[in-house]
């Protein structure tokens, strides 16, 4: 059979393709699925986001290691919870990238529009920060008398508060410079947090655990509400006086 094929190939000239380009232009190539799109977006998260977030977690773990503070729960909370708002800031700058670089309008007009894109970016960053958080908890575990859940409550409240405040800014302030406002918020929360830990140690006693749980849950709910609002608002441009042209 193969011999016949070879002989036939030699016997006849292969005809030149006609209107190949026009045919290819008309052809509807298969599109990528949302899953593919989601995976592609991982490669478009800026390298500095991965590096900075990992470096900040590394910094916390190093400080905890070299400070030799095993047993000093407040110092552990002080160091960790003061640095975590900056990890939130790194994630927020990535989320607000489309708006700060004026890419939103093009991204809104694509098949996978800005809302799809943001959902992907937020999910990727949330998953990454979740992994980093677990590494952090593992690193802290055993260094204090507090359980991992209780220490998580204390260290993640300032982080969640930064996320919530920044999302509110992104939702209600439509200017390119929101990143700077979020930077200010992170510094403010980090600073206030450091001051509170120094002067209100009573807040970390058993008596107030319920209060921390309520704050933690309220912040989580607030973040979910703001994310939904954020994504919903990205489905279309919101009218302002600059859009009257």
């Amino acid at each position: 059979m193969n011999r016949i094929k070879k002989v036939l190939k030699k016997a006849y000239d292969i005809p030149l393709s006609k209107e190949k380009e026009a045919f290819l232009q008309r052809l509807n190539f298969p599109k990528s699925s949302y899953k593919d799109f989601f995976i592609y977006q991982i490669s478009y998260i800026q390298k500095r986001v991965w590096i900075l977030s990992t470096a900040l977690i590394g910094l916390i773990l190093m400080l905890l290691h070299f400070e030799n503070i095993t047993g000093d729960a407040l110092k552990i909370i002080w160091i960790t919870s003061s640095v975590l708002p900056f990890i939130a800031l790194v994630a927020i700058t990535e989320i607000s990238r489309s708006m700060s670089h004026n890419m939103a309008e093009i991204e809104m007009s694509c098949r996978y529009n800005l809302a799809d894109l943001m959902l992907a970016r937020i999910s990727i960053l949330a998953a990454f920060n979740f992994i980093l958080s677990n590494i952090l908890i593992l690193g802290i575990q055993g260094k204090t008398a507090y359980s991992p859940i209780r220490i998580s409550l204390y260290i993640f409240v300032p982080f969640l508060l930064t996320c919530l405040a920044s999302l509110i800014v992104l939702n209600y302030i439509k200017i390119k410079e929101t990143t700077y406002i979020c930077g200010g918020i992170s510094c403010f929360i980090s600073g206030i947090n450091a001051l509170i830990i120094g002067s209100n140690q009573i807040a970390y006693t058993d008596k107030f655990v319920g209060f921390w749980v309520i704050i933690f849950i309220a912040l989580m709910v607030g973040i979910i509400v703001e994310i939904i609002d954020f994504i919903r608002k990205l489905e279309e441009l919101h009218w302002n006086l600059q859009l009257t042209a």
Partner: protein
Amino acid sequence: MELTIDRLTKQYQNKIAVDRVTLTLTNGVYGLLGANGAGKTTLMRMLCGILKPTSGEVKFDGIDVASENYRDVLGYLPQDFGYYPKFTAFEFLCYIATLKGLPKERAKEKSKEFLELVSLSDVAQKKIKTFSGGMKQRLGIAQAMLNNPKILILDEPTAGLDPKERVRFRNLISQLGEERIVLLSTHIVSDIENIARTILVLKNGQLIHNGSLEQIIQVIENKVWQCTVDRKMANELSKEYPIINLRQEVDGIFLRLISSENPCKDAVRVTATLEDLYLYYFSEVNKDE
């Protein structure tokens, strides 16, 4: 292939940016003319589904503007777009291609193809922040074309292009218009004059003209005059008639104006152009600005 726009309106508080625009667009190049604030960009944004109309609807072959399937056949170049500064031209196109639903390998192929088409292959690996305005604009045109769109909407696409690039761009748009709907807005009247099959004139959010160049020029046909007069006469004529052009010459002041009858004894009637029409309609607006 038909894009239907039905009583499309955008109102914000007491300002009506687009007022009950009704249109049906088929294959070909459509030029959208209008002064600043006429509602061109608002109309284009609504046609792209990125601005929700107050009322009215936009459909392409029955597909609603808000659906993914509509965006799948849409290419859009905004008037004022940015870019991620760390991206190279190639990375930028690959990124947009993934948003347009192209699988990664095909995204790379198409990005190379369109960089070639807009003559940016040599700088494909250079960061966009190093590009000139014209290069960025060409890159913007390339991104709009990546998904081989059936509807191509270009808001001020020739802004920042030098005359040579503009000619190339016009030729490209003419080709693209053969098998898709192309709607472009520009202040450069000659661009529209040269490539648009149909011209749409928008004033205060309303569509005041929709037709071929010959049809819309009818409004001022036989009404365009030229004369060279002294300063006193020039002042009088300026008060009485819409002036299209005024320039100082050796023997007096040259005027090009619109009048239904002979404005002065030395005036000569000349052929009307689209620019005359544009200036005639939008001279009041320009005075206000």
